[in-house]
């Protein structure tokens, strides 16, 4: 009984090594197929994009609008600017002041209902 134990352990080790090899092989196959799928799909997208932007394809009468150009965002544009003394030349932070948008519902205001209204004499 005591002699057989080493023999059984050695067999188990061989068996486990085999299982690991099979696992690694399977993973390698799966990884290869996965990457293949990804890259082949990107290539299709590129080809499709090229096809849609080209208007010189013989026999293709479809006219598509040009793709929009991306413009770099300049944080100094379109936002409130102050010159230290005033907000001269700046679009007003007007009615949206205090506006809260809630889940796409109609805009509501955080300030109370106006009790009076100033306007040119009328």
């Amino acid at each position, binding site marked *: 009984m005591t002699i057989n134990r080493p023999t059984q352990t050695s067999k188990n080790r061989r068996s486990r090594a085999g299982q690991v090899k099979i696992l690694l092989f399977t993973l390698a196959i799966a990884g290869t197929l996965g990457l293949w799928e990804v890259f082949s799909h990107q290539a299709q997208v590129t080809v499709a994009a090229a096809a849609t932007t080209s208007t010189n394809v013989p026999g293709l009468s479809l006219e598509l609008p040009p793709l929009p150009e991306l413009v770099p965002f300049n944080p100094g544009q379109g936002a409130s600017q102050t010159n230290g003394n*005033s*907000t001269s030349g700046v679009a007003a932070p*007007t009615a949206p002041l205090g506006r809260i948008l809630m889940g796409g519902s109609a805009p509501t205001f955080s300030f109370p209902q106006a009790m009076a*209204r*100033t306007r040119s004499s*009328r």
Partner: protein
Amino acid sequence: MYRIEFKAMGCQMLAILDSTAANGQEKLDRVPAWFEEWEQVLSRFRTDSELSCLNRSPNQAVSVSPTLWEVFRAAQTAEQRSGSLVTPLVYTALVTAGYDRSFDELVENGTPVNDHEIPAIGVLESVELDLAARTLTLPAGARLDFGGVAKGWAANEAVNRLKAYGPALVDAGGDIAVSGLRSDGQPWPIEIADPMEPEGALAMLKLGRNGVATSGKDYRHWMQNGKARHHIIDPRTSAPADTDVLAATVVAPSVLEAETAAKTALILGGDEGLNWLEAQRGLAGVLALDDGEVLFSRRMDQYLWS
């Protein structure tokens, strides 16, 4: 909270009394009679008003009522603070520009063609005052139209009378006076109307002890001889102000100061008007320009409800 709305001085008026006293509405119901009394003194459109009588009596020392006297003194202050841009001596220039009757009649019946030469506008120093006798002597050719100063004075006077019964607000055609904070300690929420969209608002103000007024060419305008006219006269040209400001709103320590400053900023135009507002302590303003742009003065932040 009680409120009353009525028409006076060619404008829509509103008075609010923040009180739970049972006689609150009774107190407010007196306000239209006050305005009627003041209009009978100050209107240039009523031929039998005290002002019309004064305007028909040049070169004579005319004894005037306390109301007309006070409004004249307020107009003197307005002229001084505005660098002579706000003056009641615009009467003849307004008539020359076609504003020779109440605005309701003007809209209904059209504007007369007028090719008269535009008269030069003087200064109130040309009017003689006798403080002891409370008389005014107009020089020949001078006639008075108190315009917005009369409405500002009326709003201020009404709120001073109402405040004995609780916190009060009086809106005289857009010139708004408040007596102080409301009874719950909160300021009064007041909208600045958008001159581009009659139902829209440019901003919401919170007013405690201040006054606010708006001067604009967005409503009282008409055509004369094919030319666009409005009712804000620039005394430097004796003609409707050539300005890029459509409407100017100013918050000031009092509604009379606000009325004067709003008209001054409008006449000066967007850039100069904003610079002028910034240079005046205690004033904050919003200028809505013809092209839709809106300029806020730096001190306006403290009055915007956010």
